[in-house]
């Protein structure tokens, strides 16, 4: 699958409270409603600005903080195609794979706001079209590839009724 979109660049340590604030996430399971508030405390108009397929690009420790799965779900429902970061916090990373949001660990230091990016998930390649630059990607662990291939952990359990990585 080839993803194409514009980069929205954030810094280091973007926590899950910034991705979706606690004051919203306890109220509802309507992810389209939560998506309207994604990244609101850092950029109040973020939801209005992003177009389908656009990408969040960040520095280190993206998704640190709480275990709320509403964070990757709100990003996904804001029609963001994937998140690129130089590193991810552990729980957010798992939650993203489990819910089918592609998360890509790579050197993001050369990506600037509004750069046009292409991500080939199969080949594991990030291409910065604006800068004509290919960026190598840290491969996912096998278990995560298997979960993603099934479409997420829910689909994995629908298929096997249990964990099955053989």
């Amino acid at each position, binding site marked *: 699958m080839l993803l194409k979109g514009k980069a929205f660049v954030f810094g280091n340590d973007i926590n899950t409270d910034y991705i979706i604030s606690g004051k919203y996430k306890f109220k509802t399971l309507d992810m389209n409603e939560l998506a309207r508030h994604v990244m609101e405390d850092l950029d109040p108009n973020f939801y209005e600005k992003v177009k389908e397929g656009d990408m969040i690009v960040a520095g280190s420790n993206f998704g640190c903080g*709480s275990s709320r799965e509403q964070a990757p779900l709100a990003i996904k429902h804001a029609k963001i195609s994937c998140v690129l970061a130089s590193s991810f916090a552990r729980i957010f990373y798992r939650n993203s794979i489990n819910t089918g949001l592609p998360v890509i660990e790579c050197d993001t230091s050369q990506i600037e706001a509004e750069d046009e990016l292409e991500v080939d998930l199969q080949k594991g390649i990030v291409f910065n079209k604006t800068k004509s630059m290919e960026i190598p990607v840290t491969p996912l662990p096998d278990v995560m590839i298997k979960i993603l291939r099934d479409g997420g952990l829910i689909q994995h359990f629908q298929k096997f009724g249990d964990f099955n990585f053989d």
Partner: protein
Amino acid sequence: MGKTISEKIFSQHCGEDVYAGDLVIARLDFVMGQDGTAPLAINSFNEMGGKTLFDPSKVAFVIDHSAPSPLEGVSALHKLMREFSHEKKLLLYDIGDGVCHQLVPEQGHVVPGDLVVGADSHTCTYGAINVFSTGVGSTDLAAAMISGKLWFKVPETIQFRCEGTLQPGVSSKDLILRIIGDISADGATYMAAEFTGEGITRMEIEERFTIANMAIEMGAKAGLMEYDEKVEAWLSGRTQKTPRPVAADPDARYHEIKTYDLRQLEPQVACPHTVDNISPLQEVENLPIQQAFLGTCTNGRLLDLEVAAKILSGKKISRDLRFIVAPASRDVYLEAMNRGIIQTLVEAGAAVVTPGCGPCVGTHNGVPSDGEVVLSTANRNFKGRMGNSKAFIYLASPATVAASVLTGKITDPRSILS
């Protein structure tokens, strides 16, 4: 080859000898969800085709993050949790029972050697009693509720050797804040932390919980401590389960070993808006505060309330601020009443709210106003954390918060104690 505490607990729960870096599917001893994560887990459970729980006596839901419900939408989610709990016969802790991370160990659900997951990032708290416990999301929780298992990568370990004992007025909160400041918010990502040494063994269990609780604030998967007679005494009368204590081998392999001399430690404060933005208290001393909060899974335990009551006994808080107190559980609340601690705090001017997470996580019970400065005993000071992105949150120990509510500004507790 010797093993760390993590390597031993994972080996025991997957049936083979495993070491850092190995991927395992491991059996779980207990799983937990709260009202911010359980509703989504119920959805995932149903979508996965889940019918029954692997063992209802090993699954708990806790309604603590917005309890009692401040809004209709929240009420609907609480109702969903209550109905699911009733139908599946799992353990439900409802409003007023307390904060999940106080309840799970306090009510005897976990014992040394256990492997536990909770859909809350501060699940790492139980590491203080030699439990490998870690936070997961709602879909992982759903998979765990169905299968009683989860996949893990066995983590590497950073060991923190704590030598010497803390000076009066300096607490375990100051130590963990200092450590997080030193190694940063992602300094232990994907790793476990082991806290060891005389500095830890001299601490009460409640002080140890504070340290383990904040392991996630440096990215760690768990914050582990060894079993000793204090853990044994703390567990007695709380649980029917048999502890299976796990100690690290002397030749265990560590990613890194760091040594702290607790005698040198001074009170610390985490400044806005990240937990690793640590300053020695003296650098922010006398900063006026408008709200103070004593409570949470970090510092809402009996000892924390007692420390504050000692400082506030017979005194009144500054008229320039509000002081909110949330005991960590019903049992903590009752014992604090029996000992006159609640009386002392209320007489001093505290507003006591229902045991729960509300003020810390910004759902209700004390949302600050624009530009206000809050001093809190919680574990996170992210922008917007308490429900207003224009407020400024500083984190400190219960002693520092108690000393500061007397003066209305950030105050070194040692100046009050001496």
